[in-house]
């Protein structure tokens, strides 16, 4: 089996948000919504303060809380682990937005444009985009691991290696902090990094079984 997953090296991330912006541009993500946010936060009290960056895309959990609460079956989990929203089935009830412990989902509530009026880029016809890039007001919106790209791979070994078959956030990361591949393949780079560098997951205790691993700072 293939289980697609991501590894993010927190020692390398610089909080530059290049991934955030590249993801938005590539996926036509509307203003105010982030599929790939990077949290920038301080802990402690002056002068004993640390500042850290935490990129949080959808964790594509094996037991996704969002899927369990979805009343319409709009949240779909593929065999390779990718969790996505079928906009045609989504009612925008927002249960998933609340249920997701990673705050990876947002309801797209209102059509807005970056400059108040649409640019030619924002007017790019929906039918020419991948289905998940056809943002629909009143539905849930989230990262898909760029599944249209992943699906371009003719061979499993291309995923996370060939740019065409790799999520945009991985392709765009200037610090080379992100890796993508098959978690079920012990030979894959992601599996090796998790093994060798003590990869951990966020809120593992909740039993969501996320597919995004982090390497410690």
């Amino acid at each position, binding site marked *: 089996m293939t289980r697609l997953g991501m590894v993010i090296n927190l020692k390398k991330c610089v*909080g*530059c948000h290049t991934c955030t912006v590249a993801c938005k541009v590539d996926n036509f993500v509307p203003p105010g919504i982030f599929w790939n946010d990077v949290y920038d936060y*301080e802990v402690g009290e002056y002068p004993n303060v640390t500042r850290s*960056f935490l990129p949080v895309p959808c964790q594509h959990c094996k037991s996704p809380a969002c899927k369990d609460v979805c009343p319409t079956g709009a949240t779909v989990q593929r065999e390779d682990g990718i969790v996505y929203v079928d906009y045609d089935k989504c009612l925008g009830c927002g249960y998933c937005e609340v249920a997701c412990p990673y705050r990876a989902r947002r309801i797209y509530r209102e059509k807005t444009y970056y400059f108040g009026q649409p640019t*030619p880029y924002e007017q790019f016809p929906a*039918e*020419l985009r991948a289905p998940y890039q056809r943002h629909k007001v009143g539905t849930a919106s989230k990262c898909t691991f760029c599944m249209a790209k992943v699906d371009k791979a003719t061979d499993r070994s291309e995923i996370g290696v060939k740019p065409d078959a790799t999520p945009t956030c991985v392709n*765009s990361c200037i610090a080379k902090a992100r890796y993508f591949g098959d978690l079920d393949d012990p030979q894959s780079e992601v599996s090796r990094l998790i093994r060798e560098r003590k990869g951990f997951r966020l809120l593992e205790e909740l039993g969501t079984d996320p597919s995004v691993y982090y390497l410690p700072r």
Partner: protein
Amino acid sequence: MAEKIWEDKLIPTYCQQCNAGCPDLLKVHVVNGVAVGIEPNWDMAKIHPADAKVCVKAYGLIQKNYNPNRVKAPMKRTNPKKGKDEDPGWVEISWDEALNMLAERLKKVREKGLLDENGYPRVAFHEGGAGTSASILGTFFVLFCAKGHASGSPQGIFGPVDMTLGGGKGVKCNHTEHLLGELWHKAFISMSDTPNTRYLLSFGRNDNATNGVVGVRRHSEARARGMKRVQLEPHLSVTGATADEWIPIKPGTDHTFLYAMVHTILHELDWRKMCDVPFLKKMTNSPYLVAPNGYFLRDKATRKPLIWDSADNRAKVFDAPDIKDPAIEGEFTVSGITIGADDNIEEFADIKATPSFVLLIEHVREFTPEWAAKECDVTAGTIRRITGEFFENAMVGATAKVEGEELPLRPVAITQGLGVNCGRGAIQALWTKHVLEMLAGSIEAVGGDVGVVVLISGPVERSEDGFLTYPFHPTKKGQWKFPPGKRDGVPSLLPLCGGFDGPYHLVWRWLVETPENWPKPSIPEVFISFKSNPLISQFDTPMVMEVLKQIPFYATFAYTVDETAWFADLLLPEDQELETLHIFPCGATNERENFWEYSGIIVKQPAVKRSFNTMNISDIATELSAKMGLLAEYNEALNNGAYLGMKLKGTPYELKADVKYTAEEQYDRMCKLVTRGEHGLDWFKETGGIFHPFQKTGDGEVHGGFYMRPWYLIPAMRRKGIRFELPYQERLKRIGEELGARVHEKGIYWWDSQIEEYQALIHWQDTNKFLDQVAVRLNKNPEDYPLWLLTTHAMQYAWSSNVGVPIMMESSSRSVGGNWAQMNWKTAEKLGIRDGDDIWIESAYDRVKGRVSLRQGVRPDCVVTVGSFGQWVTPYARDFNIANLNHVSPAAVELTDEGGASKNHMKVRVYKA
């Protein structure tokens, strides 16, 4: 009917919105004529040092291109009155009318004479913000600023123009490091050799925000490998966040910390064991003997400085082939001469002279860690520990092979941000930094402190005294230039700025307020500016505005109307990144931490059709030169290589004098020239560019008109027998004495504190006193301004004209503090200020309002602002409500250092608005 895809292509081009890329090589995804994506140019992944990855700013290019707020056609002003509250009354005009207007103005100037009665050029030209390269200006560069290029032409074909009026570029951009870095090791910018560094001491260098993709990559890999970084800065930046240790040092005391480090190694630690003594002896001026008058003791016949050879027990000239053991300690009886100010020769017979290194040791005796601790708010123990760590990691004696050449491996470096290496205190901080690196032998060593970019001093050449050559402005009697001929007075006042055109902040002030006994500069009759917004980026907003109002004719290449463009008479909208055509010399050691194994020529090409009635800047240049009657001169200059050193003359690609070539035709010929006829522009458009290997240990190469230095300078210096001019600054001492004499002869005494900074061994001084002096001059009590106002950068905005691009704000505001003014929670609490409040930030000069964000990672005595905001005209950005330091920081002589720079620091008080 459903739309169909009739076009789907990836167009290779590059992003050069700022100087931190080299540039970034990318492809634009265009479907049905619309740009829908940006991605790394993976074809270049093997050539680019960071797999061709591109910066966050490049991903904003699509929005930048389709921005409906762009100036969509040439516009002229109809309201003759200029002021903040005067609507310019823009009216759209044709390109023909616009360029006729500008050409007529320029022709009138030519008829009247290019220089006014005071010797100042009547035309002022600002070539753009920091890092704006010749390529971005296209062949417009040839009209006004060909200086510095391989053509050897002293100026553009138009004749002398004043390039001193401008934005914050120069005076607040690592400026003092640019000068001293090039003087000491051809380092316009000083960088760690990060892939090999073990220990990096960074005084506020914000690499993660400003060091470009390659810099970020190099540092990320180094962190993962285990390089230790200690970050000293008053607020915890995005770079401090990834450091191993953050030391919240008090602003303006970085040099104090560094003096204490020099003291610690030379007076408390075993320097003979821990320092690179062979390097001090062979590669520095540590053994040069100094006479009692402070000048090098020289051989009378050859005038060469003397060194004591301990092996033979006698003095020899510094480059004598038989020197066996140069002494850096001791006192010796020697005879010789000294060459002082204005070539004053003194003869000494059998005097006691010491190597300069002995004087260095004495010089730093008083700077104990206990003394520094009180100034810097860092414990003496920490200073001692850091010093120890620095030298323990230096691996003195180790070597590394690069390209077959054995080089010293000294993996320790010190870097400084522009709050440290620019303005008062910078010469002290830079000198001590370089002295420490000299002691460790890490300057230009593998893993040490290496330079990048050479804009002032040219290729590696040896001076008479055995150092790197440097083009000082002359200060000797009879050679000193006065009146200066430039409004900022640089040729008269700033000897270190030879070969550097500015701009400078004081020029704005002097245009309305002339200092004593200074030739009054006149307001320029025509001002042309490009990619810069001085009302936001230059110090002293009120002063800049005062001058702009008085300029009779101002034309600017406007992307959107902005604060400065508001005062213009003519707006010339040129093509933006995704629609324009340029070529650019790429790679080698071009900018920031860009160390490439290749150099080449790349093309920026239209990925999409123009959205508006804009024009390629090279075509503007051609039209304008024709309209001024200078077409033949323009083509001739291009033939002679005035643009990027591309000499077309005598080749099949030579331009005819009377033909108006399009940008396509010009660049096509240049592409053919560099490929010896093999490839034209179309081939470059298809491939993105052409590269060849660049040698890391060579002599460097002249590429695209600029000298590109090698990665490591030591091999070239060894080949030419050159030493580092460290620690002793005999030249600076001489220049200072000469300059002092010159200005005093003219009755000028207001520049004395700058002249005092030209010393053989740089003296420590309390640089914060200058801020208090400004307050007193403004009849204010310095004690009323207890807080420091500082600036920092976000990657989204560093150097680029991006404030009008919403996705940049959307992403950068996710950072701690957003882009708001930032304060420590506790300080705010005492002042009754809450997170998100509007506050006034008031200096002795002026006050500015903006929203505040409260943090823990800021010193309690500091307020941090992010640069550069505070817009009131620029669409979108005018609603930000972010305070800008420049509104409250005056352009003041007191705050200006010996290199003409001023710091992004101000003392302020803060209260709720």
